């Protein structure tokens, strides 16, 4: 099993795509300190700044909020919008639920996988796109739907989804 995690240290951001000043984490933590249930908002903001939730950032959050690293890691890995690994520049979230499925989501997914050459959970070699399957985007009136970054696209076909992709290339 994993090596013992040293608590918590001033780990410098040795990994990741962006170079982020560790103090930025402290600023976020300080803004929420004293608020009950601050962990989720803090992790959200940290992810916005760093791009993902690397170990060094989780350690710093744990230290700042006075929580155990295991608790912070447990929360960071529970929710689908949090990620402990770096992702592509754009995350493509494809809805796989029944309302999208019956309107042809599978063909849209196949087209995306063919075009990008990656499966679910994978990132294109150029680091541009990460493909993810999600449960429901709440835009079922325009199924099948796909979310790229924070934009939702609806009523897609295997052809139109490729046109949408062109906007990002």
């Amino acid at each position, binding site marked *: 099993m994993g090596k013992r995690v040293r608590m918590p240290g001033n780990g410098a951001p040795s990994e990741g795509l962006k170079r982020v000043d560790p103090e930025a984490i402290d600023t976020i933590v300080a803004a929420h300190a004293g608020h*009950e*249930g*601050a*962990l*989720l*908002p803090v*992790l*959200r903001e940290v992810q916005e700044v760093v791009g993902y939730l690397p170990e060094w950032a989780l350690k710093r959050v744990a230290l700042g909020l006075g929580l155990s690293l295991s*608790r912070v890691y*447990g*929360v960071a890995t*529970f*929710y*689908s*919008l*949090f990620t402990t690994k770096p992702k592509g520049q754009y995350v493509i979230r494809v809805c*796989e*639920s*029944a*309302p999208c*499925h*019956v*309107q042809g989501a599978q063909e849209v997914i196949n087209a995306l996988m063919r075009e990008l050459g990656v499966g679910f959970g994978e990132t294109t070699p150029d680091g541009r796109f990460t493909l993810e399957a*999600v*449960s*429901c*985007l*709440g*835009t*079922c*009136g*325009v*199924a099948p739907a796909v*979310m790229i970054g*924070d934009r*939702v*696209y*609806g*009523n897609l076909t295997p052809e139109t989804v490729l046109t949408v992709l062109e906007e990002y290339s």
Partner: protein
Amino acid sequence: MRMFRAHVLVCAGGSCSLKANRAVQERLVSEVEKRGLSDEIKVVETGCFGLCEQGPTVVVYPEGVLYCKVTPDDVPELVDEHLLKGRFVERLLYQEEPAAGGAAAYQKIPEMDFFRGQVRIVLRNCGLIDPESIEEYIGSGGYQALGKALAKMTPAQVVDEVKASGLRGRGGAGFPTGLKWEFASNAKGDVKYIVCNADEGEPGTFKDRLILEGDPHAVLEGMVLTGYAVGARKGYVYIRGEYGLSIERLEQAIHQAREQGFLGSDIFGSGFDFDVEVRVGAGAYVCGEETALLESLEGNRGEPRIKPPYPAQVGLFGKPTVINNVETLANVAPIISNGANWFRGYGTERCPGTKVFTLTGDIVNEGLIEVPMGITLREVIFGIGGGIRGGRQFKMAQTGGTAGGCLSAELLDVPMDYDELSTVGSALGSGALLILDDTHCIVDVAHVFARFFEHESCGKCTPCREGTMRLSEIMARISAGEACQGDLENLEALARTMSMASLCPLGQSAPLPLTSTLKYFRDEFDAHINDKQCPVGTCRSLAHRAALVTTGKEE
């Protein structure tokens, strides 16, 4: 105040905003300006109008003319013809049967099939007012109920009014709202909380998003009233992270309400304090379950708690808490304004009021509707919904989202409310209606349902964690034509165990879509298992095998 001779309402609901509604709105403003009509005509961005399939929609008042699928290039003609010359642009008018072709005749909005059967209490302002303007909400009677409650009613009277109205929780469980409030009101403690559950994750459901986008103040007013009724001073809205526009509009509404003194300290000089904070979820279907939601609000993994104690006694941060769904809260102000008897004038004896449904699948009018409780599926699908697309045959309806049950054609006349649907092995749930025509394979769809729960089980309790995985495996085998002896019996036994022993409604209801499809479409399961055939031809590996057989290439 400026008076305008016409208002042009552009839907800015989530579905329309996927379809260039913004460009239509900008073009409208510029074309109106170009013709020097800015003092006469006002262009307003509204919340969802309901006809998501027909978007972007534009409504011109005072005539109340509905234009559909409007593109930016249509705008100059619309402005010239309608707004200048007073002639309707027939080719853009809403058509009940798009297949008929040609130009449609003008119909008044309330007379259209889509709107005739609807009663709009929750959606009273959606599509009619600018959701970003508190003045428009106030102008349509907003915050009057709050004024009435604070000035003329005791908290106990507010609880009693809601109890008498018979309002039941619209998140899916259907628990009497007034009773929930009474428990929390009687619970001991100085600090109590109101939580609005806006973690709408049920596939096929998007009503809470459209209510929050279309009329955020209606939800806020409901929350303040709830707080007054039970003696809470703080409210949280827990909203899913994917709902960017809802979050934006809600934050803005909270800011406006604070400025106007509807939130904050000493509201209306009554001495009552209440404020609301928005908390954004991080992606977990299970957090729609109330105790999982509380865990998430407290900064933990969203795993459900064992009940009892119920949140009304021990809720958020250990304090008595009322958790109500968005739609439930949007019902509160009209009940306080108009009284319990008025509310009981709609719906059924045991389920008064209306229900907001989201229509998806193979139905002509995909979108958002509000109808009296007890309406039949037939009335919704073939009346308001405009029937099955392409004139095909109705095959199956799933009520209540993926956690709901599936109904076949012989059950089209079952009245839809919490009690009636559960007697036929289904659930009203969140109000999602997924309609399928005869081109879909039930086994294939059931496999998708099973995969969903396998993915979303939080893993805390064994019956759900293991059960959802095994259900998904069994369904994968059946749809691939590789089912083994006893698979169906195992599926049914697992379903019984899960519904009895799972900790929360996720695991308890996960088998429901499977047992109900099995009940009403047994022959399709049998065809996959015994004959290794997919009658519709959707299940890929079976279709492939069938093709090989007919071309003589097998073996």
